[in-house]
């Protein structure tokens, strides 16, 4: 309980916690939706927001609010798959490369540097075109995770490289600590804030990239995600027709999600590091 009380002393944590709680509630609400998200013309088209249709309806004859609940859920699924799978790769690659040094480091960093220098967006567009038939949430998540680990692996590697040279590593080794224990028990606590913040950055990155691909129509546009809603809205010229309730719904949701995730990562990272905890969070 003390941990939670201490965390809430930071306004950024409070804000992002509330926003993310609302967004999660939306995602959960999708299970109680009165409409099937893939069906069209279930409600009257192009209605203004009202008591019956909270955010109005769109030109496909779907309720925007309920559509948004599905969009939030699906976007979160994609980004969580992408972020967690890529985190596992990044941590493994970063720690092995950083601790082993020498040839393993060279090989692993050659691969990750290769991924860093290729123009990621073009490759993703091409890949999405090729596997379009089999594209679903999981495939898209895995595709993003295959490209999302390289930068973070490099960051983790550099931290481990620096930790290896610190005196406390020497203290631990000269006290008979084994390699695996050293990495897991001594380095892991040090890198946890970093891994956590890269995880959250990666979630935002995956949401953004999914929106980009969806906007270009490279994913299954019948599955509602934040990107596909935007795609339909732009296809129907919603901006010129002044249907702001339609365009702004995914945009505002995404912006709030980004801000909340960022503040959450900053705030928790500062809390996890005992040296910044006192300065910033005041505990």
């Amino acid at each position, binding site marked *: 309980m003390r941990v939670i009380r201490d965390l809430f002393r930071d306004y950024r944590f409070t804000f992002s916690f509330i926003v993310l709680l609302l967004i999660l509630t939306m995602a959960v609400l999708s299970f109680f939706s009165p409409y099937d998200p893939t069906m069209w013309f279930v409600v009257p088209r192009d209605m203004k927001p009202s008591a019956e249709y909270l955010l109005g309806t769109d030109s496909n004859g779907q309720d925007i609010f309920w559509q948004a609940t599905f969009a939030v859920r699906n976007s979160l699924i994609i980004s969580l798959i992408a972020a967690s799978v890529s985190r596992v790769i990044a941590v493994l690659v970063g720690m092995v490369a950083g601790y082993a040094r020498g040839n393993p480091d060279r090989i692993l960093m050659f691969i990750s540097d290769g991924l860093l220098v290729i123009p990621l967006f073009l490759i993703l567009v091409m890949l999405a075109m090729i596997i379009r038939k089999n594209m679903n949430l999981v495939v898209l998540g895995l595709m993003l995770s295959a490209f999302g680990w390289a930068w973070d692996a490099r960051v983790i590697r550099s931290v481990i490289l620096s930790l290896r040279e*610190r*005196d406390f590593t*020497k*203290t631990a080794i*000269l*006290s*008979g*600590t084994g390699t695996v224990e050293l990495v897991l028990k001594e380095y892991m*606590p*040090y890198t946890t804030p970093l891994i956590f913040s890269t995880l959250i950055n990666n979630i935002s990155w995956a949401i953004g990239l999914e929106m980009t691909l969806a906007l270009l129509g490279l994913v299954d546009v019948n599955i509602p995600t934040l990107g596909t809603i935007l795609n339909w809205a732009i296809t129907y010229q919603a901006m010129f027709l002044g249907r702001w309730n339609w365009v702004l719904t995914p945009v505002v949701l995404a912006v709030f999600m980004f801000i909340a995730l960022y503040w959450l990562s900053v705030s928790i990272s500062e809390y996890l590091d005992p040296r910044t905890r006192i300065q910033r969070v005041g505990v």
Partner: protein
Amino acid sequence: MTNEKISTLRTDHLHSYYVLEMYGKQKVVKAVNDVDLKIYENEIYGIAGESGCGKTTLLKALFNDIMPPQRLISGKIYYRVNGGKEIDATTLKPEEKRKLRLEFISNIPQGSMSVLNPVLKIKETYMDFIASHVRGPERGEIFERARKQILEFGLPQNILDVYPHQLSGGMRQRVTIALSALLKPRIMIGDEPTTALDVVVQRGVIQMMKEIQKNLKNTIVIVTHDMGVQANIADRIGIMYAGKIVEEATTGQIFSQPQHPYTQFLINSLPKFGDKHLRSSVPGSPPSLVDLPDGCPFHPRCPKVMEICRQQMPDFSHPAENQKVACWLYGGEKHANAA
């Protein structure tokens, strides 16, 4: 002290060099060059010498932690574990080496900011180190012992629940010493454990190390160039110069009748009460360990240099009991015959 004569740590013609590739040229830094040490049980052995004479390199070799670019060129390091037979430490497997650390031989690090993991509480560091040596319920017992030990050393009990950055330098140093004595090792090796502390704290730290030594009846090897600390703590002192031990004697002998010219300079440079003369230092500067002079490495700076000093390294002679010195001034003929 020394009449028991059981050596726990012995080196035999130890040569440990740094082999460096620089711009395609191979450079060999002869940091430990033919060192014969015999350190007995139940004593505090001090190693003194100027910066860059190979003290730390010697310690790494004694600790059996030789990592490239440092290499063991030749010679042996013997440990006597549990009073049994001597074992050759250089042939141990990594797992055996790991087991010995902290249980038989432990390191007293210099208590700078980063010797303890900054994101772990002191307690967690203790737990981790215990866990890597002891299995099962015994862990709890040892931790309880550590808790008591901390109180005995006059540190507050809640020190276990804080992070390293919340401790002062002296406390951190004392915690690291307590940590290194945790599993009652037979040998404790300290690389300048009192450096960067003020004299009052230094005294506390020295007292604590002496206390540990008295309780455990083990061996402490301590390196420092602070002769005041050496005088306070060491039973015997080895003076190191350019990768060699040039003189070894009991502390009293080193301070009252230094034999080697280098030791004489070292002792004469110390301030004394009532003596207002200007202290003279050793002329010249220490030799490069890459390019050592022929013969005795001290001869370019030695005021009593003889012809033979330029050609041959002297062997040890024993001008007094428990004292050995490598200088041609003492028993020169004997050396010549031996060589």
